[in-house]
């Protein structure tokens, strides 16, 4: 059966130690100031009592991922097992996918000039390892696995507890990241938000045709440079691959 990978975050077990953040940084050598995952500490006052909730987050690997739609080069793609991945060799670094993501999971890596994001540690899981953030998680708050496998820990946990996803009426795109909050309502700070600069298919329909043409023109201009860059990079990669084979 096809796999369907999901990440569970038990916010009750999360302690905001940032182990996930630093482990990810070390595993994927992300540049300073940028991380593929995060922990949001949300605090507020309720009935005169302070409250704190912790939300570990990363790319939600949505079923209906707007980043893929926004990517003009085909670098953003979805694997059959649900992973939303990024092909660095053809990513032009145009950044159109960045505002497309309502979870702010994508960013331009200034070192490689391509888009970086969480891959659920695809290279690790393909080797049978856990994602780096899951392996290191001190409170065992992060649990990863195949929800189509009835024997998997995630399948069992999904049945055991009430899990929620970060969706709103406006943004409901099938995220594959689940959260357990012990019944606490999700704070607004962690909810997905449509970005003003996001040019989704839907936006295209709404704006008038002239607008659409204008946007199309803008895209073309944007891509002129990008396309040349990606061809170059592709050639580079095949050269280096050939060398490796020798």
């Amino acid at each position, binding site marked *: 059966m096809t796999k369907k990978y999901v990440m569970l975050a038990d916010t009750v077990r999360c302690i905001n130690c940032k182990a996930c953040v630093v482990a990810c940084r070390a595993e994927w050598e992300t540049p300073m100031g940028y991380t593929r995952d995060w922990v949001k500490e949300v605090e507020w006052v309720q009935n005169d009592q302070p409250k704190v909730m912790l939300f570990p987050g990363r790319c939600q690997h949505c079923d209906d991922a707007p980043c893929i739609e926004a990517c003009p080069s085909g670098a953003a*793609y979805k694997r059959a097992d649900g992973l939303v991945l990024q092909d660095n060799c053809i990513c032009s670094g145009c950044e159109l996918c960045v505002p497309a993501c309502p979870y702010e999971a994508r960013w331009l890596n200034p070192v490689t000039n391509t888009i970086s994001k969480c891959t659920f540690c695809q290279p690790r899981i393909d080797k049978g390892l856990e994602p780096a953030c899951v392996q290191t998680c001190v409170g065992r708050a992060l649990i990863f696995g195949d929800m189509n496998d009835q024997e998997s820990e995630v399948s069992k946990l999904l049945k055991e507890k009430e899990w929620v996803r970060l969706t709103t009426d406006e943004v409901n795109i099938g995220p594959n990241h689940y959260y357990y909050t012990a019944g606490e309502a999700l704070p607004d700070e962690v909810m997905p938000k449509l970005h003003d600069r996001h040019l989704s298919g839907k936006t295209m329909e709404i704006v008038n045709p002239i607008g659409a043409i204008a946007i199309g023109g803008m895209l073309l201009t944007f891509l002129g440079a990008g396309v040349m860059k990606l061809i170059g990079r592709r050639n580079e990669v095949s050269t280096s691959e050939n060398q490796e084979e020798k």
Partner: protein
Amino acid sequence: MSTQTHFDPSRRAFLGATAGGTALTIAGLPSQALARINAPHDPEKLKETTEVFGFCDMCYWRCGLKIRSRDGKAVKIDGNPEHPNNWGVVCGKGNAGLMVAYAPNRLKHPMKRVGKRGEGKWKQISWDEALDTTAKELLKVKKKYGPQALALIGHGSWEKPYHRLAHAFGTPNTTSPVFGLCCGPRGLSNMMIMGRNLTGNETLDLENCKYFLMMGRNITESLHNGETLGWVNGVANGAKVVYFDPRYSITASKADEYYAIRPLTDHAFLLAMINVVINEELYDKQFIAEYVVGFDELKQRVQKYTPEWAEPITEVPAKDIRRLAKEMAAKAPSVFVYSPRRLTRSSNDFGTGMSITILNTLFGVWGRKGGVFTPQKYKVPEIDLPEFEHATALRNDSGGDFNYEQPEIPLAHIQDESGKYHRADGAGVMGRWPIANAQYGLTNEMWRAMAEQKPYPIRALITAGGNGFLNSTNYDIIRKALETVDFYVAGDVIPNEMNMYADILLPEASYLERYDDLQVGGAREGYVAVRMPAMKPLHDTRDAWTICKQLADRMELGAYFPHDSIKELLDDRLKKAGSSLAEIEKVGILKIPADPAKNFPLDHGGKLKIKTPGGSTKAELIPGMLKQMGYDKALDYVEQVRPNEDEFHMTFGRIGFHTHARTQDNVWTADLMRENVLWIHPEPATKRGIKEGDLVKVTDRKGRDGEIKAKVTARIRKDTIFMVHGFGHWDKRMTTAYGQGVADSDLASYAVDPHVGSMSMGLSLVKVEKV
């Protein structure tokens, strides 16, 4: 390694299906480019690595590690799943350990001071010159003043060879901050009453505990992986958490009940709990009858400490105190009153610590499931060495463990009958700090001894790691001590304010680049673990053992370092334990399996073995040894300082991704938090016109001050401010940490616990104003 490429049909489908949106992209592309785009995707690769074992040096819990290396460089730190200190998990600090090795500001070469002390002017020298000079200067001091004129302060998982060197030199004056500046009063409390230590690596059956009464034990932020994971599991298993802290920490957010107790008054609350437990007969009667003495006397002494007495002092309602006592009793013995990790706060920490031990003992938690387990020890004998001058200076340690296995008999005078000097800090010395641990000493009092040259001259100082300024509180004393000694040599990996004063700087290899002596620990399993180098030293650095051996050889003390290399030492020790270095290097850790009959004797028809320092085979609720000295008065509550209307209690503590004062210059942990902020409640903030992010000035009663940004939050009492510990560095070599935030240590109080000699850092009262 073959490149793994995944051909993914869904991607081709994407190109067709979403053509509407991306037609623009395809149009006009040359066919060569199209072919390139249509090639299989080329996602990220996992690069090949080799793996060695180690244990962590980022805090003092020392988790087991597996370190991945590539091309001779460490690239990722993972947890060792077999290690009982962490079961495979590693926190943010542990993961950031790589940046200790790769720190741009590391001490990279031996150096000698060329400017004034503390001025920060250095000249690079050879190892030979550094070691020759050090040996010469130490011998000069020894000749002129005697061996006791040397003090050693160590703080790290690699300090052990330095202690051995100092002991071989003949001084009793070796110390680590763990006692006087951190855990002393709580360790001593458990020792005096139960004959057990219960600090270092706590021996608590957290997973099975049903009720945690946590006295400011901020276990999620002052975190130790295995302990924190055990606690999280316990909570997930349904344990109730009642948390006391003037600040709503992350641990508070996990608690079922939270009390913003008035600062410094935990002792009053605990005495009232004892009162209720005794008067309402909520204690474990069988346990008390079999294992405890002093119950009736204790009953008399706590009669005055009613919940109604405690309520106005602590602001914890009397009815809640009664209820909590009953709730706990109902779950006993699977309950635990959790001491804060650092118990150097109030003016009577010893009384607070003893009250905690007494409550736990009344609930009969010792040797019981869900309570305190009895650890097992992996027996790894020490190597054979010549006798040391001062037996009291010896400590049975395993790379830095806090361990009271051999409680000292209080000593009489500064010199004993044969003319040997006792400790200058007074630890274990009658008439000074007789009950303070003489193996770890009182680091705070050692600094004072150096600064004042009393009770006898201390003319040379070795430091092995640590930061006397930021981990202590009395900067004038520290500075004076550092300026007074004839010679100061510092071994460390990173620069800091203290080693800035050194005459000679000995750069240590980081814990990823070296072997160290074995980690011998006691959990449910007994274990011994190894630290292996994950890479060659990046700079001209050496490991502590090699440095100390080379110094010993230069001072005719080579007999104390009889091996040719540390690997030989490890192999020698392991062979005595029936293994070898080659064997342990394959697995990282050797273990004796957990044994419920030994860990929880009382649940398996066994008996608890007790031996207190006073020689009792039963737990002494009021230790006889203390009564002889009149120190049992520590049980009684002492009024604590109160802020005036315009003042605040000054509190400080930990955050999960920084350790003490040693990670602020680590670029990865600094990326998570570069400066500390001052937590202040919205009400006093508004009164002072302070808004979130405003710069404020905080001033204590002694006139010490600092400027820091405000975090306006309801997560703190109105009469209290808080800041994360360890910031406010002023050593310019620490280019990341320099000038970031305020040093809480320069605002904390430096009073001394009257019985233990440890510091009382929480007595400081401060004013806050907008800048």
